[in-house]
Each structure stands twice: as structure tokens, then as C-alpha cells.
């Protein structure tokens, strides 16, 4: 049975279409990522799935159940909520409660749950047990938010940009929490605009743009769809020689695709050792001078750029 199944989801706000006919299926035990720039409709989508936002159209099924059975906030909805763990993007927990008091409050809403100590151990916040929430660091607050989501022993965990704004170490700590939850058989749906996060954590990702899924698959499949595993980026000093045309670049050995950009040009490349010398030779013949040259493994970011022509971060 699928943990999440939704089809034909539409949500409009005034004159903006936040979600435009979305289909998704997430299998039980899977970690599924919704990836996309700010404003792509990720948060609206996840909040519709969580039963917090009413869609204008479409059907949502979670763990074989639907929202609104017996009225909003009714017994059927509460029974479904017992099985979910939810972390929202913007929630600020009360500053003047301690970590343990906060977890205990959330714990009291569920009929079956971890003990406060168990869940604090899961997110490694035992030492902050008695500290006021207002005194925690950003990473600790985020782990506490996840603790409040995990306290119910959920089957399905929703995380909306859980690591946005965190330093790399805090981010890795949270990834570890999510991995442990999955290892115990849980299903995760998370949104992020960090490619690395999606690549490391998710079994499958859906790349969203303008309220639609524009690509769906495992991170490996999506990167492979570029046709090559490497990206070469370069930029030229202004006015020195003639810039090669995209067709000329595409004809270089090992180059699969060319993406000219405002400040740099990116080449998707199957064989770096062939493409780079050829590129340097071409530029030298044109009298062009490099101001930047870099290569990296292709990422989901490159997939997004190749699909939309925009960078994820500033899209």
C-alpha cells in the first residue's frame, strides 16, 4: 500500500496558482523529496497532504485514509493525525517553555508515544532537557521541532525544509535523525531546496517548478538524464577575443550539452579529460582569456537548471 497517493491537486491563491495539477505516489518505507526553488509550491503541497490546507481540487490519500471523514477536526481526522509526524516550516515553539516541557506537551496529544527521554535521545537533545526553547541554537530548535514530530511514533513523517538556515554540522545531525527514523521503517516526505540534501537522503525526488512536477525519479536517474556525469563551467575576461558560439562548444569531444548563462557557460560533459583540453585549445585559437574554470560532478541542481534554464537558488 502506498503511504501517500495524491492526484489532480490544485490550489489557487487570489491570482497565483500555487499547485497546478499535482500527482504523487510515495511508497511505504520510502524517503521522498520535493525539490524546487522558493515559490515552487512545495509548502502548499505538503500542507495539503497534511490536511492543513484545503485544496481547490484533487484527491489525497494517506495510509489508506482521507481527510475530512466526519468533519474537519473530527474523530476520523484525529485518528489519522495519531499516525503522522509533522514539522512545519515556520513554527516557532514557545520560548519560555523548556525542551522537556515542550515535548511533554506534544506527547500528551497522542494515545501512543515515545517517552520524553526516548525522543530527546533520538534527536540528541538530552543535555538541553531543562533549557528554555528561546535559548537554543537554530539547529537545536530544529531538532526539537523534529522531536515534537517524532514523539507520536509516526508511520509517516512530514518535514518542510527541515534544514533551511542551518550550519553544515547541524544539517548533518538532522540527516542522521532522519536516517534512523527510516531505518526503523518509517516513511518520510520532505521538502528542500538543497540538492545535496535530496541526493543524500531521498530514495526518489520530484523536482517542482510553478506548482508542477517537472521531473521525477531517483537522484541517480535524474542526474543520468543529463546524459553525462560532469559539468564544466567557465567564464571569459570581457573583451578578450570572440566568445565561441554554443554550436562550436557542443561540437567539442565529450560535450553533451551547452547552457550559456549571463555570467558563465556550463557544459555537460561525459569525459572531462577530453573536453577540457579541447575547450582550452578552442579558446586559445580565439584569443579568449579565461576568468574562471571549474568542473564538478553533475548534481540535481544541474538537472533543475537544464530543465528550467534557471538556478535553483535564485529561480
Amino acid at each position: 500500500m502506498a503511504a501517500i497517493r495524491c492526484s489532480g491537486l490544485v490550489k489557487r491563491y487570489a491570482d497565483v496558482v500555487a499547485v497546478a495539477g499535482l500527482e504523487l505516489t510515495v511508497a511505504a518505507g520510502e524517503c521522498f523529496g520535493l525539490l524546487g526553488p522558493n515559490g515552487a509550491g512545495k509548502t502548499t503541497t505538503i500542507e495539503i497532504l497534511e490536511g492543513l490546507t484545503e485544496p481547490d481540487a484533487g484527491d489525497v490519500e494517506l495510509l489508506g485514509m482521507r481527510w475530512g471523514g466526519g468533519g474537519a477536526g473530527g474523530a476520523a481526522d484525529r485518528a489519522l493525525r495519531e499516525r503522522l509526524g509533522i514539522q512545519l516550516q515556520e513554527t516557532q515553539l514557545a520560548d519560555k517553555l523548556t525542551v522537556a516541557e515542550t515535548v511533554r506537551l506534544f506527547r500528551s496529544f497522542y494515545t501512543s508515544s515515545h517517552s520524553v527521554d526516548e525522543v530527546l535521545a533520538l534527536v540528541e537533545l538530552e543535555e538541553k532537557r531543562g533549557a528554555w526553547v528561546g535559548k537554543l541554537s537554530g539547529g537545536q530548535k530544529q531538532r526539537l521541532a523534529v522531536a515534537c514530530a517524532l514523539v507520536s511514533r509516526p508511520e509517516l513523517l512530514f518535514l518542510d525544509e527541515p534544514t533551511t538556515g542551518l550550519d553544515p554540522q547541524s544539517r548533518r545531525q538532522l540527516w542522521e535523525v532522519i536516517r534512523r527514523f527510516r531505518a526503523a521503517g518509517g516513511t518520510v516526505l520532505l521538502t528542500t531546496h538543497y540538492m545535496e540534501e535530496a541526493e543524500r537522503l531521498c530514495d526518489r525526488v520530484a523536482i517542482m517548478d510553478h506548482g508542477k512536477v517537472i521531473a521525477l525519479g531517483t537522484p541517480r536517474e535524474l542526474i543520468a538524464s543529463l546524459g553525462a556525469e560532469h559539468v564544466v563551467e567557465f567564464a571569459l575576461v570581457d573583451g578578450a577575443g570572440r566568445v565561441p558560439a554554443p554550436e562550436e562548444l557542443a561540437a567539442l569531444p565529450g560535450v553533451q550539452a551547452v547552457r550559456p548563462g549571463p555570467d558563465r557557460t556550463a557544459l555537460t560533459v561525459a569525459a572531462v579529460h577530453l573536453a577540457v583540453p579541447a575547450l582550452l585549445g578552442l579558446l586559445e585559437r580565439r584569443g579568449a582569456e579565461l576568468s574562471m574554470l571549474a568542473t564538478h560532478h553533475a548534481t540535481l541542481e544541474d538537472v533543475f537548471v537544464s530543465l528550467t534554464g534557471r538556478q535553483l537558488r535564485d529561480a
Partner: protein
Amino acid sequence: MRDRPLVQLTLARMREFYREPEAIFWVFGFPLVLAFALGIAFRNRGPGELKIGVLRAPGDSVIAAALDRSPALAAAVLDSGEARTQFRTGRIALLVVPGDPLVYRYDSTRTESRLARLEADEALQRARGRPDVASVRDERVTEPGSRYIDFLIPGLLGMNLMGSGLWGVGFSVVQARTKKLLKRFMATPMRRSHYLLSFILSRLLFLFLEIAALVGFGWLMFGVAVRGSFGALALITVLGALSFAGLGMLVASRARTIEAVSGLMNLVMLPMWILSGTFFSYSRFPDAMQPFVKALPLTALNDALRAVMIDGTGLVRLGAPLAIVAGWGAVSVGVALKIFRWR
């Protein structure tokens, strides 16, 4: 052992309150400061000595001496220029011009001046040998319960119930909404009724401290007694607290920002601060306004509190004001539940 959600929510409410020093001051400290300051400023002093001027003229010293013999009067002999200035600025209540006849110059619209005229005339006529024709005896009584502080303490109690009910509920609800905490709660199986009830419960628990502080202070500092039963007082304050908590819920039911709810709160409270007889009797307002003033929940609450504290009235005879208080609460909660924005 399972924690009960209602207990945990109420505990959270209370912790958030008592860990906020500003909140403690506004709920407990401020009314005491106000009661103390106003109690001192308006303590009953009586009129004191009345100042009388005697115009410099033949016979002035005899007149001044006769006036000074009265304990209620203090006389001074003045030149005409000085007399005019002191009369105009109200330093003397009455000017006596020696001669035949004696002339009393005073402003008959000033209570003090009229009193001075009576006292001065009495003193001078006696000095010239007028006998008393009827025998009289004075009985002086200062009735506790008729002082300003006796009037003020129940009013402050009512005002405090209004303030902490509205702020305590309204502010917290809107804060939870702006911080998306309300939405987060909606993502759990928490019952909405538990959430709202937790506000009422924590209000009731703090209520007893609020009353004890203010009534105890009035009693210790100024000897303000509770003439009626403490049971009746407790019941009225509970009803008042519930009613204003309901009003707070209504005020907070839609507001999305702290600024919006603060504005609404002041809109609700300001008219009642002025009109509802907290600091002075609402009977000073024109007759045409009286039905409106009496329909306000704080007016009704203050009336009921004063009836119990000052007059010792029993609950049975307070049906009308208590019905007004309860009615406001019930209607507010009813409307609030219909229009409440849960996210």
C-alpha cells in the same frame, strides 16, 4: 503514565505567564500601585482650615481675633491690593470688610466660600454676644465604606479582571497564531476544545491570586473590608473572569497580528475604563447615556463587586448585573467559536 492534554496545555499557559516578568507586573503589580497612589491622593482629609481675609481698616484686628478663635477658620489682615490678588487666586475663601454693616465678599458658586461665610458669620455674631436659642449636640461619624478607597478597590478589581481576561487570552492566542504554533497544534490530534479550555482554566487559577493580592492590599493598607460573603465575591469574580476571557477569545478570533489584536483590545477596553465607573461614579454621565453605560459588562461587574464589598448585598439581589456579565461572556464565546481562525 499518560499525560492529559488539558493539564499539559494549562500548565504551558501558566508557565508562559509566570515566566514573563512584565505580565506579572501588569496583572499583579500595576493595580496595587494604582490603588496605593489613588488611595493616598484621595484620602479623606475633610475641608481643613478655611482662610479668611480681613481688609485693613479700623477695627480689623478685633474681627481677625474673633475669626481666629473658631477652629475652622484662619484669618489674616490684608491691604486692599493684596486682598484682591488673594481673593482672585482662591487663596482666601472670603473677604471681610470692617464697617457697619460688615461686608462679606465671596463667590457664592464656590462651596468652600459659602462654608466660609457661614462659619465666619457664626464666629462674628457669637463674638458680639448672640446667644444660641436651641440646644444642639454634634455626633461625628466617619463611615468605612464611604471613602474613595472603598469605592476604588472593587473598581480596580473589575478593571483587572477585564484587563487580564482580554490580554491573557487575546494576546496568547494571536501570538500562537502569528508564530504558527496554532497551526502546528492543528497538525496533532489535539482537541480544539482543550486548547480553548486551557485558557479558561489557567485564568481561573491565577484569578484567585489576583483577587487575594488586591483585596488583601486594600484591607491591610486602607482597612477596606469585604462586607458581604467571600463566597459571593469569589463567584462574581469567577463569572467576571470567564466573561472577559470569552470576550478576549472573540477579540482574538480572527486577528492575524499582535498590532491588530492590540488595537481591537484597546477599542474594547478604553470605553469601559472611562464609562464603567472604575475611578468615578458613572452617574456623572448624562441620563441619555445611562442605559448604554449600564449594559457594559464592566459596569455590571463593578456594580456587583461594590454591592458585595461595600453594601454586603447577597447574590440573590444581584441577578440583573450578573446576567449582563454572563450574557456578554456567553455571546462572545458563541460568536468566537463560529468565526475562530485556527491557523
